[in-house]
């Protein structure tokens, strides 16, 4: 019997400190058994449990794209017991990964449509996965225009800075990077909160689906902006966070109504959420 609780052993291949406060690091993992990589077949939007012997597990969105072979990456915010310990680990250390878990962004529905991606702070991880996935030569033609609004508190808090700069140069993706504020005179992108920049830059909902990931306050104020432009609740896609343990819908803690965020989510449309108890 396949044991869904048993993590695959992995080695930390590379650690990148992403933000100036050093609270966000990206971990690149390599599977100890190459066969496990095949089994770990995922789709952007899914997450996995990072599993550390002696400490426990933490559910984290997958930041790499299935088009990137040979490793998987996660960007981890230092908050609890497991993530704090992970931040103290070094390249070469062995731990576990369990997954992939949960559902994914509605790729089939998004096919042939304009895609609007809106991210704030450290919730940009599965959005990075999605962007890399869509920009891959094999996939790019499946989507129409791709627009990205991504904001952080200040330039030092942006994730994936090199890639952001690279995407800015491309003409097959419209980037709208913003910060809440900065005293950097050389800052060449936007200044302003994500909802404000969204209002300025995203002016059409025609044939479009929006994926929104960020802190609750950002989601709260971005939602009406999108609805005003004409996005119906079915076309606003959100990814939720919850305390989780099992990741497979059994341990009982991450439910919203009869849906488990770990198994039936974490991706829900606003239309779905409007019919669920407001308990998240």
């Amino acid at each position, binding site marked *: 019997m396949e044991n869904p609780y048993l993590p695959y052993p992995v080695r930390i291949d590379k650690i990148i400190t992403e933000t100036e406060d050093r609270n966000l690091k990206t971990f690149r993992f390599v599977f100890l058994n190459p066969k496990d990589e095949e089994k770990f077949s995922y789709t952007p939007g899914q997450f996995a449990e990072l599993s550390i012997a002696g400490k426990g*597990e933490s559910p984290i969105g997958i930041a790499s794209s299935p088009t990137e072979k040979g490793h998987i990456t996660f960007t981890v915010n230092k908050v609890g017991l497991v993530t704090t310990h992970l931040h103290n680990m070094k390249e070469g250390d062995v731990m576990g990964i369990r997954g992939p878990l949960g559902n994914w962004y509605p790729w089939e529905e998004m096919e042939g449509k304009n895609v609007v991606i809106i991210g704030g702070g450290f919730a940009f991880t599965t959005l990075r996965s999605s962007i890399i996935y869509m920009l891959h030569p094999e996939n790019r033609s499946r989507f129409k225009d791709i627009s990205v609004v991504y904001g952080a508190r200040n330039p030092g808090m942006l994730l994936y800075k090199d890639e952001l700069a690279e995407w800015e140069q491309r003409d097959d993706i419209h980037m709208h990077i913003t910060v809440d504020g900065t005293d950097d005179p050389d800052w060449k992108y936007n200044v302003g909160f994500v909802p404000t920049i969204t209002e300025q830059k995203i002016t059409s909902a025609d044939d479009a689906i929006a994926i929104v990931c960020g802190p609750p306050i950002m989601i709260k104020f971005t939602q009406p902006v999108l609805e005003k432009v004409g996005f119906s609740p079915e076309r606003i896609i959100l990814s939720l966070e919850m305390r989780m343990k099992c990741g497979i819908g059994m341990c009982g803690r991450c439910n919203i109504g009869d849906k488990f965020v770990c198994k039936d989510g974490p991706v829900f449309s606003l239309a779905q959420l409007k019919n669920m108890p407001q308990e998240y």
Partner: protein
Amino acid sequence: MTEKIYTKEEWIKALSGLKSFYNIFVPVRDGDFHTFKALDEKKIPDFNFQNTRLSPKSLVYPQSERIFAYTLDEDTPDANIIKESEKDYSPKAVVGIRPCDAHAFQIVRPNFDNPEYQDPWWIQRYESTTLVGLGCNAPGSTCFCTSVGGGPFSEKGLDALLYDLGDTFLIKALTEKGEAFLENAQGGKEADDAALKAGEDLAAKAANKIEQKISIDKLKDKVQTELFDAPFWDDVAFACINCGTCTYLCPTCWCFDIQDEVLEKQGDRIRNWDSCMFPLFTLHGSGHNPRAKKVQRVRQRFMHKLKYYVDKYNNGVQCSGCGRCVRNCPANIDIREVCELMNRL
């Protein structure tokens, strides 16, 4: 299927003999209440009981269970690699389980065994367990099994069923597992028509003795969010002290936590029962808690049992009507009353 009759002395003797085929668990008197214990020379099975204080769910799903083991010793090649712990799935028989508690395993099953994921420990232990039920001649005043799809002689989830006919036990095999159990049981004789008739009469009489009826018929058609926002939750929750008594005694509560414990360089990953009554259950690492308040947690317990489960599995309510939570809630929060409120809304 085999139907046999045993005198009570013969039955105890037969159980002793069955020990070479099964780990036999029987109700044993333990102070003020009964509890299931492994049959050995020192234990006297006592089938004269209402029900056990704790449900027998722990025989399939222990309160604490080591699921994985690992070493943190960097000098060993498999340091930090999490490995499955050895498990004992040798045959087990629970003799004297009440029909509500056997029904409860059926209610719980879709959580641990569904098309997407299978919980290896729950499933293997459940499958290696034979459930030999004991029909309830005199159901208690807090029993409401007949309202939730069971009954004092319900065969749901059972492999064999015992009828207490006074001096004798009538036992009927109900499944292959039950058949195998009876094949291994020494003594007894084939049940005659009189015994079978007596068993039937007993069952019919017992069902009529259940005075408690609760209505669950309208729960399915209710709108989840309307029940969630119902006005009665504050009143329902006021007296609750947020202990885990209801959830730990309940045969259909399955929530758990996973914890790592380390002694020097050796560690275990342990699965423990958890409870939606505890604030920690849903506390995020960030400090945010979607069910920080008592009323939210109390609502979750009842909504889960009487609405979310109903909507998710189309398998009735997540309650087998055993009445343990009714009798043992320190604050007298009574699921029968809450169910009426919900059904009536």
